[in-house]
C-alpha cells in the first residue's frame, strides 16, 4: 500500500533525480556568472554573495537528495512487509523524519528558501540600481545588466524548483501520515485481538475452576449419608 502510494503517485525517484539535475543545472550558471564579473567591480562582487550562498545551499541540498532517495526506497520496501506491524510503524516514523528534514530545508521559512528569496531580491535590486548608475559606459552597463538579468532568471527558476520540491515533500509527508494512521489502526486491531484472547483464556480458566469446585462439592459426603 505504501509502495503503491509512494512509488505510484507521490514519489518518483526518476523525477527526483531529474529535480536534482535541474538543481545542479540551475546552480551552475549562478556560479559561472560570478566568475565573469570584472575584477574591478568589487562592489558588484560583494552584492553577488547572497546568490553564491544560495547556490552553495542548493548544491548541498541537491547532494542530499540521492542518499535520501535511496533510504526512502529501502524503507518503503521494508514497510511493504506488513507482517510486522510494529516494524512497519517504526519504518514509517523514520520515513517521516527523513522527509521532514528535506521539507524543513525547502519550507518557506527554511534556510534554503529564505536564501533564495534574499538572492532574488538582491538580483532585482542590482538591476534597479544599474538603471540609475552613471559610473559605467553604456556597453559596460549593458553587459552588467545582461549578467544580472540572467542571474535573476536563473534564481527565479531555482526558486520555482524549490517550490516544486516543497509541494512534493509536503504531499509525501501527507501520504506517510495517512499510512501511519492505517498502521496505527492495525496495531489497535491486533491489541484488541490480544485482549480478547486474554479474556477468552480467563473465561476458560474460570469455567475449569468452577467445574473443579463442583466436583469437590459433589465429592463431599456427610457422615452416614
Amino acid at each position, binding site marked *: 500500500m505504501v509502495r503503491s502510494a509512494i512509488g505510484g503517485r507521490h514519489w518518483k525517484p526518476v523525477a527526483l533525480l531529474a529535480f536534482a539535475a535541474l538543481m545542479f543545472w540551475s546552480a551552475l550558471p549562478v556560479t559561472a556568472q560570478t566568475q565573469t564579473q570584472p575584477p574591478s567591480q568589487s562592489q558588484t562582487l560583494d552584492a553577488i554573495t547572497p546568490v553564491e550562498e544560495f547556490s552553495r545551499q542548493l548544491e548541498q541540498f541537491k547532494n542530499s537528495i540521492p542518499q535520501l532517495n535511496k533510504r526512502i526506497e529501502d524503507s518503503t520496501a521494508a514497510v511493504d512487509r506488513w507482517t510486522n506491524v510494529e516494524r512497519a510503524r517504526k519504518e514509517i*516514523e523514520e520515513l*517521516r*523524519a527523513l*522527509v*521532514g528534514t528535506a*521539507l*524543513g530545508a*525547502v*519550507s*518557506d*521559512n*527554511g534556510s534554503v528558501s529564505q536564501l533564495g*528569496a534574499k538572492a532574488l531580491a538582491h538580483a532585482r535590486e542590482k538591476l534597479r540600481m544599474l538603471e540609475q548608475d552613471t559610473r559605467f559606459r553604456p556597453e559596460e552597463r549593458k553587459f552588467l545588466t545582461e549578467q544580472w538579468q540572467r542571474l535573476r532568471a536563473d534564481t527565479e527558476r531555482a526558486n520555482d524548483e524549490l*517550490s516544486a520540491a*516543497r*509541494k512534493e515533500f*509536503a504531499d509525501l*509527508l*501527507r501520504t506517510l*501520515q495517512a499510512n501511519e494512521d492505517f498502521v496505527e489502526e492495525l496495531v489497535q486491531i491486533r491489541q484488541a485481538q490480544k485482549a480478547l484472547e486474554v479474556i477468552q483464556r480467563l473465561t476458560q480458566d474460570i469455567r475449569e475452576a468452577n467445574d473443579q469446585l463442583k466436583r469437590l462439592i459433589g465429592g463431599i459426603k456427610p457422615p452416614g449419608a
Partner: protein
Amino acid sequence: MSMRALPIGVVAIGLALAACNPTGDTGYVEIRTVPVASQRSSSLYLDSTKLEPVQKGVAVLKQRAGTTKLSAESIGGQVPLCDIVVRKNRITTVTVSLLDRPPRCQCRNSAPKGGACVS
C-alpha cells in the same frame, strides 16, 4: 573574576540554547489561501510571528511542535482564526478563506473536541 564569570556564562548559554529549543520537535504547517491571488489580503500571523505574503496560494512553514494560533491582521489588532496542532514530522493543513471578513479557517482535519486543525 573571569573564573567566577565562566560558570555563569556557561549556564546563560545553556539557558539560551534551551530557550531556542535547538533539538526540539518540529512539524509543519501548510497554509493555503483562497482565492490564490487576492488583491487585499490581510497579513497572517502564527502566534506572534508575522508571515510573509503567501506566494501562489500555498506556504509550508516549519513550526515547533505544539498548539499554535493562526490569526489575521485587522483594525485594532489581530483577530484569532483558529488553533493549529503541530506534531513532530507531521504536516497540518489549513485553508484560509480570504473572501470572508475576517478571514476564515477551514481545517483539512479537525480535532474531535475543540475544533483545532490537526495533522
